[in-house]
């Protein structure tokens, strides 16, 4: 059992299918691990003992009956609590939704269940996915398994911490401006944000609809690929989901990088990051170069404006998306029951946390008559220029490499002002603005033994290029096999 606890999700799935172990045994082992270890981490906001156990039994019954149990049969997974789960509370780590029991599954969740995955529970996040450190969770803090006195990153902090501490085999997060990749970097795991539209957003609590995307966090490239094969694909319930064939992503991990063209942009280079981060990222790129990739310099002149563009556009969309939390249809209600306006304002004033209010206010400002052209429209035009920069760059290179974040994980409270916190996202934001697939993988550790992430971006629908790089890199290095000491 201890071997299978540390095995990859692909190996676990194979062992269950070959009846070397039952799904129920593996599920119990993970539930026991969560019970023993998660108090220190705070990755889970809700453990679904009953649902997980019932699903594991179904998988075992299917296998015993000789039925096809699905590609994720028995694999213990966990979900960012932004993904809507039928009959399992979904809160977005917000007081305003506390206690909400959804009457439906989101599409990605439904696909996981159909594939036989055992959903262990829901994972911590910054409230409504707004944050880069998980400090904005209204439920509880989440710690970084590599150093419990540091943050796990955000907003999918619980998703990254749970995988790093091996409290699940694979998790799902969402990424609006780096919320999968940055916590993956901080926790030393692999996180992949697919092309905008690859995965249906039906049943994802919306933050910024033109940027949001679901993706996997895993230890190995093959495990992320396995998850992608299940969750990607057209969904009639999301008009923006892409009607593109879903490649054999696991096969892409076996490919090599000979002749692959890697671009390094001056505007997203190590000069903007901590020297130890820059050195590890450079060394990581050299590994791929030695494997046959070609490296060249490119320019993405407008990406330096990604931060101001993103922090106008995302809050503007959020201010509109979060208008639905008004005390009528779900969650909490406060204020004077005889006064509609008072009920709205009190519900929202009491239900939302500080960062969510800040972004709603910022978005309301940007969309307000008189400011619309100068802020919102201007940011949309800059977004078009950023997307065009990438389009040009991808005529010369196949992937673009950079640090995922300018630093390793920091301590709670280290970012004194909102702008300081927003700077943690400088390398990840432009990917979402352009709708590209992006990935972070662990490429080393700093002198305090904190993980460092290497980010790779690819043209739309070229996730396979990212997985080729990750597969090759993980065959040549062993960073991804390291475990935090307290969570061996």
């Amino acid at each position, binding site marked *: 059992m201890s071997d299978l606890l540390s095995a990859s999700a692909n190996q676990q799935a194979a062992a269950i299918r070959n009846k070397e172990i039952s799904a129920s045994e593996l599920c119990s082992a993970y539930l026991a691990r969560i019970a023993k270890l998660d108090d220190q981490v705070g990755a889970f906001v809700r453990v679904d003992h009953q649902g997980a156990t019932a699903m594991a039994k179904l998988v075992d019954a299917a296998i015993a009956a000789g039925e096809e149990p699905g590609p994720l049969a028995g694999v213990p997974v966990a979900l960012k609590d932004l993904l809507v789960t039928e009959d399992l509370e979904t809160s977005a780590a917000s007081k305003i939704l506390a206690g909400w029991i959804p009457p439906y599954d989101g599409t990605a969740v439904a696909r996981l269940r159909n594939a036989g995955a055992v959903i262990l529970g829901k994972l911590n996040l910054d409230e409504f996915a707004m944050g880069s450190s998980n400090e904005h969770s209204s439920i509880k803090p989440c710690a970084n398994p590599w150093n419990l006195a540091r943050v796990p990153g955000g907003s999918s902090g619980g998703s990254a911490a749970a995988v790093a501490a091996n409290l699940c085999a694979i998790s799902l997060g969402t990424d609006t401006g780096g919320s999968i990749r940055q916590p993956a970097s901080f926790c030393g795991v692999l996180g992949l944000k697919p092309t905008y539209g690859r995965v249906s957003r039906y049943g994802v609590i919306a933050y910024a609809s*033109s940027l949001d995307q679901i993706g996997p966090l895993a230890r190995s490239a093959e495990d992320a690929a396995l998850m992608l094969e299940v969750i990607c694909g057209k969904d009639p319930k999301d008009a923006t989901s892409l009607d593109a064939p879903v490649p054999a992503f696991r096969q892409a991990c076996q490919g090599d990088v000979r002749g692959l063209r890697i671009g390094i942009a001056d505007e997203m280079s190590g000069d903007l990051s901590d020297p130890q981060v820059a050195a590890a990222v450079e060394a990581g790129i050299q590994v791929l170069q030695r494997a046959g990739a070609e490296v060249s310099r490119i320019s993405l002149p407008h990406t330096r404006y990604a931060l*101001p563009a993103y922090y*106008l556009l995302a809050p503007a969309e959020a201010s509109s998306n979060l208008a639905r939390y008004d005390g009528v249809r*779900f969650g909490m209600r406060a204020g004077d029951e005889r006064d509609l306006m008072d009920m709205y304002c009190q519900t929202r004033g009491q239900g939302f946390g500080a960062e969510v209010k800040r972004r709603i206010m910022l978005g*309301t400002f940007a969309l307000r008559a008189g400011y619309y052209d100068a802020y919102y429209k201007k940011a949309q035009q800059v977004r078009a220029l950023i997307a065009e920069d990438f389009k040009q760059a991808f005529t010369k290179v196949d992937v673009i490499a950079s640090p995922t974040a300018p630093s390793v994980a920091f301590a709670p409270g280290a970012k004194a*002002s909102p702008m300081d916190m927003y700077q943690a996202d400088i390398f990840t934001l432009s990917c979402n603005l352009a709708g590209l697939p992006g990935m972070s993988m662990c490429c080393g550790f700093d002198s305090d033994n904190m993980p460092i992430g290497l980010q790779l971006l690819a043209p739309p629908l070229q996730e396979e290029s990212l997985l080729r790089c990750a597969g090759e890199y993980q065959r040549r290095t062993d960073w991804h096999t390291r475990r935090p000491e307290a969570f061996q």
Partner: protein
Amino acid sequence: MSTVTEDEIRSLARLARLALSDEEVRALQTDLSSILTHMQALAEVDTEGVEAMTHVMLGNEALRADRVAPSLDRERVLSASPRHDHEHFSVPAILPGSNS
């Protein structure tokens, strides 16, 4: 340099339907002013003639057929709301003098 006044914060909060304490108003005034100062970097960019990008367009702009399909069960949806009468969501009176 403050770019947003306290009055503007209060007026935005009304538009956003947010009840804020005086302390929150002051904090938001400081934060929004600082954030918006950084946003002014966008003014440097020449966007003359650039079309605003509202969405990522990768061939995902086709609409599905408009066919009736089953929707969520009313009782289950209502049961998740803070107040309902088993047929409707209940809200405070919308028009002055009417009952909720």
